[in-house]
């Protein structure tokens, strides 16, 4: 088995192992697991950067060079490194953050499973496999967001995250299946190889839109952006891991993965670009309305995701480079900031940005980490964030006719990011210290290690851009574009328009930061933003679905037996008659009165008996009329050459009438059929419909040629093989004896059940 498949098994096995050790140890186990997986993936860096693509094929068409299964190209490797690397830090952090909490171990196990599912999703080269891992991440996120399950808000947020991302997953599945049908393979690389066929398929456009819908739901793009801030009900390690660094980027990953397939389609580019821009703008605007630092970060994450989607939409080489670089940068600084906010929350008991300040003296290490990460976020040199922002502006400038809008909006968005970065670093840690619920101090090293390391990584990556470009960015860009490219990252581009834009951004950002205390309440008062949000739509849709389900259930499960029976028979009859009608009816058998023989009188007796049963006023009369039907039927059997059946029917009818008569002494035999005349008519209509359907089907059956082989075989073999002259009896006791054995078992069980049913009466339980 190939290593990349083994990695998933190790991940799943390690997660399971965490369930059986003490929570404190489980955190270490998880961190070790993630770190070793990270090392495993990092070992592939060299090979992948030179163009190798390790694969673990579960199936494949070697002639077409298609292998479905797992595949580790540059894009997958970048994601795998982020997932495992940040994962290791998060495990470490979580063990300390939730130390002593009874839910810690469960959280760790779910985190491990989530990590494994993420790794599976990004290394899958099979659409179905991708979908399965995709939904597994949604499920894991449901449990992780709902960690604090006693809180109704957490439960609601978990459900919302599950419904939105899971619903998107269903759209994705539909899209993937359509693409797979068009491509003739479920292998993703096979789909990309078959791009002309996929795009020429009549359902190509719906398929693409479905895939986009799945990605947008997962990556919180407008109009699905509302679930991400609500998911902040999760514990901070979960938010840092799922909602900034990994899971929400899975949608971005999907778009990047399918970009080689769709990069010739104009709609793909337009949609991604504008939706991404709208998302980024929405996130920036909403981020400036919040003082809860976690929600601020959530909104800026929405902005980051929107920016990524937009960059994939713009798509030429520069933009893809910008996307990969920004992805990396964003993962570093956003995870670090989430962890910092978690530390602040943990140590001070508050995460209200308006109430906190001057924490730097009490928690210097945290302040340094936050400062480094925030500078990267603000895009200041020499951080890698600066490199990313330069690329961002360059990509927008090269976006053709739309570049003016992109630049102007992008400028405002970036400026607000600078302001938020200021709030999260300068305002939070410098200035006069304010009173907090708990006395702040730097946390346990396990908690501070994550943000410090991530922030330093941001600094390190900025200082050696060439190495990052070769090892990580270029292979990923190659995967996004589906062709070889040369990527160079530089910290210093010289004095040009882009640098001027960067400088102006920082300037406006500083202005916004200084006015932050006035901006937030100002934007808060604009309630119109809430009113038209899609969150309202979601609420109404959810409530509507539930009430619709209730009404449907009330309609179908009404609790009236006769209603069920009527529905059953009417539906069956309509289905039978409808099928007959669709198939063009049947040939009615020829009929002449002359052909009738006296046996028809038995049929008349049956009809008379049925009428008497139906019209009987009391149950006793109905039972007697039923007996008449039974005897007429037994006569009919006799007249059609079935003496065994006739005698059996006769005996059964006798016994049944005797037993019914004995029982009717207890039952209210005189009960009148008290259906209202209108109800009787309706019931009769259903009954006649059912009868007509049976007759019609029976006539249709009789019109088909009869195959007598089975009966003839039994007849021919009965005496020679089984020494019996009564063929019916030989079938029962010899040819089909096993069936008969089963049937007499039923009889014995019925006897046993009746005895058990009536036994309790003798002990005086029921009157």
């Amino acid at each position: 088995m190939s290593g990349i498949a083994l990695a998933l098994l190790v991940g799943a096995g390690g997660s399971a192992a965490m369930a059986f050790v003490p929570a404190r140890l489980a955190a270490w186990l998880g961190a070790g697991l993630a770190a070793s997986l990270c090392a495993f993936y990092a070992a592939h860096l060299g090979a992948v950067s030179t163009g190798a693509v390790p694969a673990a094929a579960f199936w494949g068409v070697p002639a077409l060079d298609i292998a479905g299964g797992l595949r580790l190209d540059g894009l997958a490797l970048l994601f795998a490194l982020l997932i495992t690397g940040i994962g290791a830090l998060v495990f470490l952090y979580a063990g300390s953050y939730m130390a002593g909490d009874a839910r810690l171990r469960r959280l760790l196990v779910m985190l491990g499973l989530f990590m494994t599912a993420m790794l599976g999703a990004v290394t899958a080269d099979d659409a179905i496999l991708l979908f399965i891992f995709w939904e597994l991440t949604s499920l894991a996120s449901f449990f992780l967001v709902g960690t604090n399950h006693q809180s109704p808000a957490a439960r609601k947020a978990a459900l919302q995250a599950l419904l939105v991302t899971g619903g998107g997953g269903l759209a994705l599945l539909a899209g993937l299946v359509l693409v797979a049908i068009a491509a003739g393979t479920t292998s993703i690389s096979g789909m990309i190889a078959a791009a002309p066929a996929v795009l020429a398929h009549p359902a190509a456009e719906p398929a693409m839109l479905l895939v986009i819908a799945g990605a947008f739901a997962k990556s919180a793009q407008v109009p699905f952006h509302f679930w991400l801030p609500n998911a902040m009900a999760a514990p901070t390690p979960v938010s840092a891991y799922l909602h900034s660094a990994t899971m929400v980027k899975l949608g971005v990953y999907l778009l990047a993965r399918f970009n080689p397939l769709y990069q010739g389609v104009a709609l793909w580019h337009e949609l991604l670009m504008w939706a991404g821009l709208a998302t980024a703008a929405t996130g920036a605007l909403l981020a400036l309305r919040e003082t809860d630092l976690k929600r601020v970060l959530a909104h800026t994450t929405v902005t980051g995701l929107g920016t990524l989607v937009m960059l994939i939409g713009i798509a030429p080489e520069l933009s893809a480079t910008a996307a990969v670089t920004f992805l990396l940068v964003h993962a570093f600084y956003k995870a670090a900031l989430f962890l910092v906010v978690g530390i602040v929350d943990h140590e001070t008991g508050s995460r209200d940005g308006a109430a906190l300040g001057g924490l730097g003296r009490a928690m210097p290490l945290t302040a340094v980490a936050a400062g480094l990460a925030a500078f990267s976020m603000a895009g200041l040199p020499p951080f890698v964030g600066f490199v990313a922002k330069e690329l961002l502006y360059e990509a927008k400038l090269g976006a053709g006719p739309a570049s003016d809008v992109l630049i102007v909006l992008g400028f405002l968005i970036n400026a607000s990011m600078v302001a938020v970065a200021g709030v999260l670093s300068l305002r939070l840690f410098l200035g006069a210290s304010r009173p907090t619920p708990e006395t702040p101090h730097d946390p346990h090293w396990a908690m501070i290690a994550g943000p410090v390391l991530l922030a330093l990584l941001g600094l390190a990556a900025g200082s050696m851009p060439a190495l990052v470009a070769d090892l990580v960015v270029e292979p990923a860009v190659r995967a996004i574009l589906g062709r070889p490219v040369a990527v160079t990252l530089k910290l210093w581009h010289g004095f040009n328009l882009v640098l001027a834009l960067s400088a102006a951004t920082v300037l406006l950002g500083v202005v916004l930061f200084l006015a932050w205390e006035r901006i937030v309440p100002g934007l808060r008062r604009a309630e119109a933003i809430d009113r038209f949000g899609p969150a309202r739509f979601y609420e109404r849709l959810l409530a509507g679905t539930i009430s619709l389900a209730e009404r449907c259930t009330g309609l179908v499960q009404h609790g009236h037996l006769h209603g069920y029976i009527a529905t059953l028979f009417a539906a069956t009859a309509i289905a039978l008659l409808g099928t007959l009608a669709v198939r063009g009816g049947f040939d009615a058998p020829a009929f002449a009165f002359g052909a009738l023989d006296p046996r028809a009188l038995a049929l008349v007796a049956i009809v008379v008996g049925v009428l008497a049963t139906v019209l009987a006023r009391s149950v006793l009369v109905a039972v007697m009329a039923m007996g008449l039907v039974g005897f007429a039927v037994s006569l009919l059997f006799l007249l059609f050459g079935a003496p065994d059946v006739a005698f059996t029917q006769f005996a059964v009818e006798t016994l049944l009438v005797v037993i019914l008569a004995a029982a009717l002494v207890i039952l209210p035999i005189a009960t009148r059929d008290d259906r209202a005349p209108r109800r009787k008519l309706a019931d009769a209509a259903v009954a006649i419909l059912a009868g007509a359907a049976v007759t019609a089907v029976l006539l249709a059956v009789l019109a088909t040629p009869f195959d007598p082989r089975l009966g003839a075989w039994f007849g021919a073999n009965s005496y020679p093989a089984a020494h019996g002259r009564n063929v019916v009896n030989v079938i029962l006791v010899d040819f089909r004896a096993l069936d008969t054995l089963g049937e007499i078992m039923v009889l014995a069980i019925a006897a046993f059940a009746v005895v058990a049913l009536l036994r309790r009466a003798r002990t005086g339980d029921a009157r």
Partner: protein
Amino acid sequence: MRPSLILRTSAPMLLWLSLLASLYVLVRGHNEPGGGFLGGLVAASGLLFHAIARGPEGVRTLLVLHPVQLSALGVLLAATSGLPAFLGPDGAYLTHLWWFAELGVTLPLGTALLFDLGVYLAVVGMAVAIFIGLLEWKAARAAATEGGE
């Protein structure tokens, strides 16, 4: 309501007559109309009649076994009648074996008859169990109601 004298007197005769008839129907079933199902029903009707005339206790003493046990015995008999098939040439379960005994006349004996006897017992047991169960339950209820008032 007590059954009439005529009923009580004629009940044993009817019972034995119907039991005899039921065995005849059972045995001839392999070659003429009849068999275990029909024989069982005939026997059951005789026993039901007896239960009406002499009460459920009369049938219970007559049968020795509980009717459910009778039913289960029938299933057991039918199931085991298929086992000797494993001694036969093709060895499939429930393929009946035959032995034609020459005792002046040829007497065809086969495991098929045992199987049919099992069917017979299962049917008898089922019908009798339900009927006397009902009768006894009625009696118990009547007693409880009288006691309660």
